[in-house]
């Protein structure tokens, strides 16, 4: 979770994009890590009942972790004198069961939209999951917003994920030791990412030129947090993988996306092409959204072939080869119910062969 302190208020952003002010809802029995920064002066995040306190500084991240053990409401104070209403910069920490927390995450309120703005709204949990979602993963709207920023700010132009760009690929950077141009090494933690974005020439990665623009003063703390969330999400050391989270009792889950598979689902496929398709699927990064766990930003593709798919406009369609092909090339044409039209357009990017390989691969994915 991300915390931003400012005169005289605490903002908390949850992994699913939900935002709250002067309150902190946390699940019981889960390690919670707070990544904190301030927009103005120094504050200090203090929960007396948990015996923890950490100053929150402008211009850098500090972090704090705890695991709440008893449900209830606790004081949250600003402990570092920060001006006129210092004594009103207080709030409540609400410790709830995992399920209640899950439910709370989907209540209406302030939400960080994928474009980074904050609007009143409601975040729906990914309907495909029954398990709880905690920690950053690709289903994390903070990360999605970050990814969009990454593209719109042009970062992606240099930091090509597959490598070979003007800047280093950012996959698996967070949490790893980086070697710098002067030969020293540094652990890529939150502050390293932050400084590298804002003033990259302070720490140049070995083998690269100091050509990256200075973003200091160009992007807000919110945006910085989103970029960070994105960079964390594309590292296999980022946060808790959803799988490691203990599963709570089943959710009263919202309407399932995919209509249960008719008996006719599945079908023959070309194994050769499918193997090539699998490689493409991984290399192109499709796998990042279309996770087999169902937690991704895109729907799960296993067992999809020849099944009925409910679309956003309320209609439904059989996922035949033509549908698969169209969805790859121009996914916006038919958007699956409960998903956002965020998949890139691959029309003109992929060769016909490649599309065929991908389609065969998807066909091969049976339950």
């Amino acid at each position: 979770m991300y915390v931003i302190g400012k005169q005289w208020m605490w903002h908390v952003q949850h992994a699913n994009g939900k935002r709250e002010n002067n309150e902190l809802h946390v699940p019981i029995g889960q390690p919670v890590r707070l990544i904190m920064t301030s927009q103005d002066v120094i504050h200090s995040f203090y929960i007396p009942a948990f015996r923890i306190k950490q100053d929150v500084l402008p211009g850098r991240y500090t972090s704090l972790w705890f695991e709440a053990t008893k449900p209830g409401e606790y004081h949250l104070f600003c402990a570092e004198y920060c001006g006129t209403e210092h004594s009103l910069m207080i709030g409540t920490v609400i410790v709830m069961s995992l399920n209640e927390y899950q439910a709370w995450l989907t209540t209406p309120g302030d939400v960080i939209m994928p474009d980074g703005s904050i609007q009143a709204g409601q975040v729906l949990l990914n309907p495909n999951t029954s398990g709880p979602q905690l920690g950053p993963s690709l289903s994390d709207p903070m990360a999605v917003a970050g990814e969009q920023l990454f593209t719109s700010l042009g970062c992606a132009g240099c930091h090509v994920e597959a490598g070979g760009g003007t800047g280093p690929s950012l996959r698996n950077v967070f949490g790893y030791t980086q070697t710098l141009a002067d030969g020293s090494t540094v652990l890529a933690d939150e502050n390293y990412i932050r400084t590298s974005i804002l003033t990259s020439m302070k720490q140049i990665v070995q083998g690269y030129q100091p050509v990256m623009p200075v973003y200091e003063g160009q992007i807000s703390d919110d945006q910085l947090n989103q970029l960070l969330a994105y960079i964390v999400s594309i590292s296999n050391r980022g946060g808790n993988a959803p799988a490691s989270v203990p599963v709570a009792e089943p959710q009263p889950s919202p309407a399932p996306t995919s209509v249960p598979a008719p008996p006719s689902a599945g079908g023959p496929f070309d194994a050769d092409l499918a193997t090539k398709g699998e490689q493409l699927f991984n290399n192109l990064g499709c796998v990042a959204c279309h996770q087999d766990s169902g937690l991704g930003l895109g729907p799960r593709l296993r067992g999809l072939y020849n099944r009925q798919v409910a679309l956003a406009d309320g209609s439904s369609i059989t996922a035949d080869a033509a549908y698969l092909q169209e969805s790859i090339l121009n996914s916006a044409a038919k958007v699956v119910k409960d998903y956002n039209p965020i998949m890139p357009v691959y029309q003109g990017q992929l060769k016909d062969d490649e599309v065929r390989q991908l389609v065969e691969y998807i066909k091969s994915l049976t339950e």
Partner: protein
Amino acid sequence: MSTSAIPQNYTSTRADSATEWIKSWLLTVDHKRIAILYLLSINFFFLLGGLAASLVRVELVTPQGDLMTADMYNRMFTLHGVIMVFFFLIPAIPAVMGNFLVPLMIGARDLAFPRLNLLSWYLYMGGGVFALVAAITGGVDTGWTFYTPFSSSYSNSNVILTMSGAFIMGFSSILTGLNFIVTIHKMRAPGMTWFRLPLFIWANYATSLIQILATPVLGIALLLVMVERVWRVGIFDPALGGDPLLFQHLFWFYSHPAVYIMILPAMGVISELISAFSRKRIFGYEFIAFSSIAIAVLGFLVWGHHMFVSSQSVYSGLVFSFITMLVAIPSAIKVFNWTATLYKGSISYRTPMLYALGFIGLFIIGGLTGIFLGVVAVDIHVTDTYFVVAHFHYVMVGGTIMAYLGGIHYWWPKMTGRMYNEAWGAISALVVFVGFNMTFFPQFVMGYLGMPRRYHVYPEEFQIYHVLSTAGASILGLGFIIPIIYLTLSLFVGKVAGPNPWAATGLEWSIASPPPTHNFDQTPVVTEEAYAYPEDAAAQDSDSWQAGSHL
């Protein structure tokens, strides 16, 4: 009891007119007169700081902010902190008692640089005027710690004026330190070897070292904040490319040693008092002397204990924590030695002794809670809560102010030639002790329960402790006012003291009270160690004891 019994002395003048008389004080280069100037001005600032504290305490009786606005409240506690730290605690003992006593105790005619000494007082007053003007024209709301970037970029109050005040007063402190060091090195009477010096001198020597070495760092830090504030040069504010923690490092590099500027001279006073009122040579003279130096040195290495939660690395936290524990050793050595001095001494519970004994108890509480705070794990919870507030009031009020009051009473006959009213003295010492504990002990409790410091409004569950604390503060305030009354009265009606009312050792007691302008008729020659009380003083005293005897 008539004035005629008091001989010509440093307070008498041959001035014919009022202007002459005023000039003879304001342009004096006599260390004793300068000490009196300091006494008056420092007490004025003490009362002002006390007034601000009272307003803060009254506001806190209720959880809501009903007496004043949040801005006003913030200005009040800042005024309190700035005045008390920079204009009272730091100069109090060195500038008043040090000025008066250093030359007398070492058998010198004056300080090494009498004019510099007068300049120090003017700098102190100049700094004070800046601080007062800042307070009157809108106040300042940064806290005495002036943390950036709040102070440098965000606060809309008289930061610059106040900082200039502290900056200027810093020079007064540096010059006084310089003066003492040179004086102690160069102007000791024949035979006054280093290990015959009274411990008060050792304490002031150690203090002077800190004043000279640490104060410039504060000056620089404050100057940098002013530069950033005025010219928006990025030094501390990350929005301008600065580092907000840099200020904390610079500030505490001075201000931790500064807490020893406040306590070391107090410890020196206590050594004098304990020895004089036990009529025994102080136990472990060398240990006490060197522990002052050890505290002064170690004090420079622990500033990071104010920054455990600032995002300082865990490793530096550990090192600072360890060195902080070391500071407790020389402090404890002193306490043990004072206690050992009492053992089999001929103890008389005169007012100065009451303050000294109060000091020992309160300083132990203050010091031990300092060790709690030095433990990173504990500090994370209680830092920036009332626990810290209680800790430093136990050492600064329970320590320094108790010693200041004890010292004032002890040397009052020497300064003025008259005795104060002993009964009232004892009563007010007790009132101070009770009021003090009632004010600050509840603060340990509420701090531990999580009550943050510098809160204008607070959750209701803490009210009971605040009410207790304010009640205690009223008693404490009374305890400070009573001495002002009877001490002032004693100037007119007090018994003539004579040269040595306490039958104490020390060169200052060998001359008339008040001392003549030139201090010693002949340069004294020292042949004895300090505190040369007869071995069997206790037995002698008990043999010759009779109801109403002097000691």
